[in-house]
């Protein structure tokens, strides 16, 4: 063959950029097919010149496709390699191409969802969220930059990897590296989730369990303090040396729970939500339910 068709780096960058819009025409029939075709169009233009060939290529890629939007990149890479071979006359039929796409999208989605949606985004989101709640503008900036650098880098390198590896990548999916990444991500994810449940789920019970009169000398006697600034100073000093502000020691239900371990009520609530979700209760129902519980418990003075 005199003129071997080859996708240049420029073509591949163009495909990479277009793959950002993979989910744009997401639909209930064939899911990401429109975006997939849209991403591959620069390659189709380059590889096929006749109208018939282009129509066939478009039709071939408008078949069903759905995976995590970022791990679609290695699949795109492999498909580019296959299409290139096909355009150069190798016997690669539609079934092979569709087979590779479908074969890869399942396992890869299994990697993409836990790694991106359930580890990287919650961690970055929690970091950014806690900064932002404190009024720190760095929160959103860090989130935006970190996320997009990770995302674009991942998509480019895996697409290139797929392109170079050609059809061999399907064997790599079951390989050890991906397994390690998935497991490492879920370990980190669970660890961080444990911390987040403790820090950010707020359940505070207000009922008073007991009120104990404190012994004389264990609390600040406000009447006996000197007047003016000297009195304030005395009070602060006394409080600093461990005297109580009131003559009663009030123990709320919350204090009791916290002495087991702080955050245990939040943990219980999280476990309850997990159980409800497993019972196929919709998250939206739970959210509304919790708001209702919040209002009711607030009214009866439990929270």
């Amino acid at each position, binding site marked *: 063959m005199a003129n071997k068709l080859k996708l240049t780096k420029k073509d591949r960058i163009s495909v990479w950029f277009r793959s950002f819009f993979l989910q*744009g025409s*997401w*639909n*209930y029939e064939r899911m990401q097919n429109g975006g997939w075709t849209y991403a591959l169009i620069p390659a189709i233009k380059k590889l096929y010149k006749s109208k018939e060939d282009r129509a066939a290529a478009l039709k071939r890629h408008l078949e069903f496709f759905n995976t995590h939007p970022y791990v679609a990149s290695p699949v795109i890479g492999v498909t580019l390699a296959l299409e290139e071979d096909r355009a150069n006359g190798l016997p690669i039929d539609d079934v092979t191409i569709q087979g590779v796409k479908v074969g890869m999208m399942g396992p890869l989605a299994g990697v993409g969802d836990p790694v991106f949606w359930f580890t990287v985004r*919650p961690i970055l989101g929690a970091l950014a969220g*806690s900064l*932002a709640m404190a009024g720190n503008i760095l929160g959103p900036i860090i989130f935006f930059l970190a996320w997009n650098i990770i995302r674009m880098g991942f998509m480019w390198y895996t697409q290139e990897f797929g392109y170079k590896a050609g059809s061999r990548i399907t064997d790599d999916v079951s390989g050890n590296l991906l397994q390690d990444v998935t497991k490492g991500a879920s370990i980190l994810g669970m660890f961080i989730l444990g911390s987040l449940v403790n820090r*950010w789920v707020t359940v505070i019970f207000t009922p008073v369990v007991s009120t104990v009169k404190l012994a004389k000398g264990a609390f600040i006697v406000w009447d006996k303090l000197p007047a003016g600034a000297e009195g304030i100073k005395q009070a602060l000093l006394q409080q600093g040396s461990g005297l109580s502000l009131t003559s009663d020691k009030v123990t709320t239900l919350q204090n009791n729970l916290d002495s087991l371990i702080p955050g245990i009520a939040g943990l219980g609530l999280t476990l309850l939500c997990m159980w409800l979700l497993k019972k196929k209760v919709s998250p939206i129902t739970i959210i509304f339910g919790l708001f209702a519980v919040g209002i009711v418990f607030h009214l009866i003075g439990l929270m």
Partner: protein
Amino acid sequence: MDINIVQMLLVVIVAFLAGMEGILDQFQFHQPVIACTLIGLVTGNLVPCLILGGTLQMIALGWANIGAAVAPDAALASVASAIILVLGGQGTAGVGSAIAIAVPLAVAGLLLTIICRTIATAFVHFMDAAAKQGDIRKVEMWHIIAICMQGVRIAIPAALILAVGARPIRTVLEAMPIWLTGGLAIGGGMVVAVGYAMVINMMATKEVWPFFAIGFVLATISQITLIGLGTIGVCVALIYLKLTKQGGSGNGGSSNTGDPLGDIIDTY
């Protein structure tokens, strides 16, 4: 607070971006911490919107589009609640009630998303027709129209809220009794658990539960920041992976489950 026409235009543009991202999930303009901050930026209410975004982000941590399932819509929730916060003119004090509004909005947005995804089914049939002709440009066009439809999905509600104006929204907000806002704030502290529960249900296996417990206990030490906890988490994961490998090779590599404890149990 009243905002001028340029600011309104900018708000609608931000809403459009957020709507597009709600489906694309790439640049993350639809994430509350970004979307609310942008709205705050263009309307000159940066700090309250920033705080609203951070708080909503905490609630929305586990919202993700998995497979064909649609998550509660962070885009509409963030954009609309931020606009309401700005129009309400209560500043930081209005964050609590804005969050309470955000959750029903997320559900409304979810319904809109489902409608858009159904309409997009028609669009891919137009693509099919164009493909038969080999008409590349038309295929591209329908894809871009579909993306724009998702942007409009958020831009129109945003424009509607702007059109209604500040006064009705403020009246509604001020009419809310204290027991309701107090209760909603308490509920808001709890709904975060739902997002975490969704994520945990996806990831939890017997093997990784202990790491959840370690994280939970370490978080009670309030001096350790989230970055600190993240560092510990990464180290624990690396050490565990390394140790499992060594355990695996010591096992003679009889099976490749990557779970040495399981292997030992199996051999008994």
